[in-house]
């Protein structure tokens, strides 16, 4: 089509646009516009009726002025006049004006709706399309009310033109998005779904957007679309590049429609029908194969269109997460893209691999690309690509590569763009905590973080390191030594001073033996930073000083001197002054005993989800957190330990002895009668090792699984104990049945009221395990014990544990706790004796990769032979002698009895005493059992 006469339609408009373009300044432009606005206004108000053409021209000018960014408050009426015209071009401009200047002026909307109604019933396809466009553009509620019932009819009517159908489908989609309650598909559902079969590719392309949106909201009603989508996709994928004529784009058949079809399928689980699924897998394989073929064109459009389909196919494969073969192929394909010369492809490959890393089938395959990704982090010129590389490193991190990844991220932080530093800091902090094997590494990492990017280390990060140091006594000495060294630097970040002040105040005594870090040296070091710090840090340091007086009586005189000086005791800041006055008084009037009690070491912090993780989630928004983390958070049940995310604030530090330390409590807690030492011991038993959560199966902090893992290899013992309640367990199992006795002991002298216990099987477990019990007596007298019997039936193999929730009133307060009941799959083992020959024959039979689960891990407990044997026997399997050629190794065999099937299991444990490591291998006839047993056992040795 030639470029003729397009602009000639409205010369006045062109002249006006030229004028505006010739304006030399913003002022000149505004002047010209105001002149024009005045002119148009007078024309519209004038007595002489304007003809359609002039009206169109002026409305167009108004539109242009509006698009330049100026406000337009008139001309709507003239626009409505235009769209009611019978002349197409006038109508078109009228609709355009209304579409761009949406105005919820209700009177106008009524007029507009009237015109739309006329056009929709005109049976003139171009008019109908204009009207549908206007509805889609405005999309207001009034329009939905007026037309939502009419449009589905137009969409499916047999005599509707294809172009109108396309507009109707997308118009309906827009209305559904703004007012879903008004769009009722009901009777139209099946006819709309069948648009996927339409002859006209354009109709399918438009309709599929509508169908996808409806399927997301009502998957069941629209599920017939799955098989239609698969067959449509299959036809496109297998068509030659020219078959689809104008719908072929740079030799790629229907790329937009293909992407949409693959997107639609992601609303559903894999097809149940074997034939449909087979056809789909074939499509996905073809798409993966095509990626390896030489390109049919050198144009970037060709490769973009082809790869758009490929990425969408990979998304679908990841969504299904059930075809290990396809997942690994997808991963390899993305691996190729990681080194592609197109930046766009590298970016997308990094992004897509992030989701692959969270699939158990492809996690290992993703990990093999670690060097490339690290390289990308170092060398990519575009910050958004580097950001993706950092995300991927975070997603692929596990215990095996944590040290390398954290080291790389730390070194990247030194030069990282400011825009992503805070997020990087959070990620490093989380990885260091999650995968720490030795805590000195963790402490080093966080202190490095403060050193390198102190400004970006948020409160959550330094609170967390203190929580962890306080809760782990094996790292306290190291932490004290390290912060002491870090504080030697002439300029150190204030966050370092905070951590240093807190840790030395608590654990400075652990390094005080060395004359180079004697109490006075420590104090002088801290105090040398004092004057450079902000008020909150200084307040923290004052608390550290009073703790010093308790830890090191020899520093008392020096510190009192400091507290007594005017800059402290008369400080203009109320908080600092109060601390100085109270601490000075406390140190001079209280006896050493009282001082020791008041300033006792902080009790351990109750365990909870890392607040850093919460912060990262908040920062990145729900979509951005990797799947594994989301699963972690999904498991959060009711709060067990209570208490929000309070940091180790300075008030609580000073008030460590009040039983309920709160930020608003009296600073020193002197006035609240001190229940000496009660708090530490009570919190102690609730505490779990902070790092025990790091394993892949660990639940969130909200459910107490402290005792759970201790019962994998034994059946009797104390499951839980705090200062109120003790819960004991006795259990016995035969075949697929078990009986568990729970003993609830009231340790106090006061009655527990409304005592209720509930056992629940969350999620899938409901269909795998049957647990029955009778309610217990609601009253438990002081010192008494009550018993509850659970009957357990294993229906099929399972991975989760049933939850026991206990609620009761003690005094006035409602107590609520949830425990994992130690019912694990290995309880249903029947030991199987077999000869060496039989063992290895079966071992070979179970040689499919997914039947095997293997873990290599560090010994956490004694590697003594007798202890190991006892544990393996406790597991329920038969321990087979003289089977493994290496006498150091242990092999076991057993059959797990469930109601639905029996699962044969073989186990091999290879200890390496020198390296203090084990290799554990399981082969079972069912792969989920291998994985679960491997997870459970890896934490037992």
């Amino acid at each position, binding site marked *: *089509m*030639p*470029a003729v*006469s*397009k*602009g*000639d*339609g409205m*010369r*006045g408009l062109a002249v006006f*646009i030229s004028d505006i373009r010739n304006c030399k300044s913003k002022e000149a432009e505004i002047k010209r516009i105001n002149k024009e606005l005045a002119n148009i206004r007078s024309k519209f108000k004038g007595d002489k009726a304007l003809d359609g*053409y002039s009206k169109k021209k002026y409305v167009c000018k108004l*539109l242009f002025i509006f*698009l330049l*960014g100026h406000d337009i408050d008139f001309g709507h009426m003239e626009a409505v006049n235009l769209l009611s015209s019978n002349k*197409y*071009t*006038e109508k*078109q*401009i009228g609709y*355009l004006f209304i579409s*761009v200047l*949406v105005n919820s002026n209700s009177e106008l909307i009524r007029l507009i709706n009237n015109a739309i109604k006329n056009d929709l019933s005109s049976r003139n396809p*171009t008019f109908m*399309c204009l009207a549908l*466009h206007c509805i*889609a*553009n405005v*999309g207001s509620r009034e329009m939905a009310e007026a037309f939502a019932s009419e449009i589905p009819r137009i969409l499916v009517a047999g005599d509707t033109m294809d*172009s109108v159908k*396309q*507009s109707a489908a*997308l118009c309906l*989609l*827009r209305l559904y998005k*703004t007012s879903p309650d008004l769009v009722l598909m009901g009777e139209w559902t099946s006819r709309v779904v069948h648009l996927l079969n339409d002859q006209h*590719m*354009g109709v399918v*392309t*438009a309709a599929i*957007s509508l169908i996808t949106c409806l399927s997301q909201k009502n998957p069941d009603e629209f599920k017939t679309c799955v098989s239609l989508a698969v067959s449509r996709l299959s036809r496109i994928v297998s068509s030659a590049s020219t078959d689809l004529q*104008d719908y072929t*784009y740079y030799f790629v058949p*229907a790329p*937009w429609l293909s992407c949409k079809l693959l*997107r639609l399928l992601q609303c559903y689980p894999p097809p149940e029908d074997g034939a449909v699924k087979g056809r789909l897998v074939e499509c996905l394989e073809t798409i993966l194969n095509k990626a390896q073929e030489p390109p049919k064109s050198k144009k970037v459009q060709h490769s*973009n*269109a082809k790869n*758009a389909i490929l*990425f*969408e196919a990979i998304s679908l494969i990841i969504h299904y997460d059930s075809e290990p073969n396809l997942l690994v192929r997808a991963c390899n394909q993305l691996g190729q893209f990681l080194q592609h010369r197109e*930046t*766009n492809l590298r*970016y*997308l490959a990094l992004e897509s691999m992030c989701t692959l890393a969270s699939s158990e089938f492809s996690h290992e395959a993703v990990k093999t690309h670690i060097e490339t990704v690290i390289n990308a982090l170092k060398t990519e*010129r*575009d910050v*958004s690509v580097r*950001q993706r590389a950092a995300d991927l490193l975070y997603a692929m991190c596990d215990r095996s590569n944590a040290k390398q990844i954290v080291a790389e991220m730390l070194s990247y932080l030194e030069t990282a763009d400011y825009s992503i530093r805070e997020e990087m800091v959070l990620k490093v902090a989380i990885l260091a905590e999650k995968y720490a094997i030795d805590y000195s590494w963790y402490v080093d990492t966080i202190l490095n973080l403060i050193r390198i990017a102190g400004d970006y280390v948020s409160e959550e990060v330094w609170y967390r390191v203190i929580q962890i140091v306080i809760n782990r006594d094996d790292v306290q000495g190291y932490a004290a030594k390290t912060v002491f060294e870090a504080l030697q630097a002439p300029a150190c970040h204030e966050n370092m001073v905070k951590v240093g002040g807190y840790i030395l105040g608590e654990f400075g005594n652990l390094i005080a033996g060395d004359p180079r870090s004697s109490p006075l040296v420590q104090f002088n070091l801290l105090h040398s930073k004092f004057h450079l710090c902000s008020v909150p840090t200084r307040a923290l340091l004052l608390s550290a000083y009073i703790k010093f007086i308790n830890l090191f009586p020899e520093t008392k005189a020096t510190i009192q001197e400091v507290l007594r000086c005017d800059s402290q005791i008369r400080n203009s800041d109320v908080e600092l002054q109060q601390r100085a006055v109270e601490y000075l008084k406390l140190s001079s009037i209280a006896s050493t005993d009282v001082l020791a009690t008041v300033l006792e070491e902080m009790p351990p912090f109750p365990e909870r989800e890392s607040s850093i993780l919460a912060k990262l989630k908040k920062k990145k928004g729900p*979509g951005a957190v990797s799947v594994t983390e989301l699963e972690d958070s999904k498991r959060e049940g009711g709060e067990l330990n209570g208490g929000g995310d309070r940091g180790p604030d300075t008030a609580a530090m000073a008030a460590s002895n009040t039983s309920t330390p709160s930020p608003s409590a009296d600073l020193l807690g002197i006035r609240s009668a001190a229940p000496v030492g009660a708090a530490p011991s009570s919190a102690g038993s609730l505490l779990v090792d902070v790092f025990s959560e790091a394993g892949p199966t660990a639940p969130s902090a909200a459910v107490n699984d402290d005792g759970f893992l201790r019962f994998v290899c034994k059946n009797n013992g104390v499951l839980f104990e705090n200062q109120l309640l003790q819960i004991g367990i006795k259990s016995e199992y035969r075949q697929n049945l078990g009986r568990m006795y729970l003993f609830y002991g009231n340790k106090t002298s006061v009655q527990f009221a409304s005592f209720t216990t509930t056992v629940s099987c969350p999620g899938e477990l409901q269909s795998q395990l049957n647990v029955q019990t009778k309610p217990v007596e609601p009253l438990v007298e002081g010192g008494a014990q009550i018993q509850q019997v659970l009957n357990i039936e294993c229906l099929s193999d399972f991975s989760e544990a049933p939850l026991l929730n206990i609620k009761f009133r003690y005094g006035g307060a409602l107590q609520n706790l949830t425990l994992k009941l130690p019912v694990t799959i290995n309880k249903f083992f029947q030991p199987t004796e077999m000869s060496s020959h039989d063992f290895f024959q079966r071992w070979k039979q179970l040689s499919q990769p997914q039947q095997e689960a293997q873990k290599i891990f560090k010994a956490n407990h004694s590697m003594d032979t007798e202890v190991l044997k006892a544990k393996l026997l406790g597991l329920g399997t038969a321990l087979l002698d003289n089977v493994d050629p290496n006498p150091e190794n242990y092999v076991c065999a057993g059959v797990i009895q469930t109601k639905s099937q029996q699962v044969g299991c073989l186990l091999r444990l290879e200890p390496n005493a020198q390296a203090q490591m084990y290799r554990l291998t399981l082969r079972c006839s069912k792969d989920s059992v291998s994985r679960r047993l491997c997870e459970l056992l890896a934490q037992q040795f």
Partner: protein
Amino acid sequence: MMRFMLLFSRQGKLRLQKWYTATAERDKKKMVRELMQIVLARKPKMCSFLEWRDLKIVYKRYASLYFCCAIEEQDNELITLEIIHRFVELLDKYFGSVCELDIIFNFEKAYFILDEFLMGGEIQDTSKKSVLKAIEQADLLQEEDEPPRSVLEEMGLA
């Protein structure tokens, strides 16, 4: 779905804007300003995608004009890049090697073409032929509607 599409020049002049969700004028201006700043600051070899607020931005430069689309989390970046390209092809075909001036002086036509191609932030038809046929028909109707006027008449002197 696409949330909006912007066309702006290297000098930061907005040439076309299409919003597919209801957005207040003030917010629109703020978003346009912010995005233009980000995109114009990027170097030629950088990737065409970036994360911005909760959206993904896909942009591409053609001569003096930037085409910039905001899409949602689950949308496909590469296919959006080709939406831009197909739109450019449509403009090119209609105007005959399109340039920025064509879009400035015929902004209403550019809107009509875009509307035939995308609707409610989704693709309506990907066939170049179908889209152009619709526009051509409209132009034919225009010619039937009104005989060309003389320059004098146009300027109000006739």
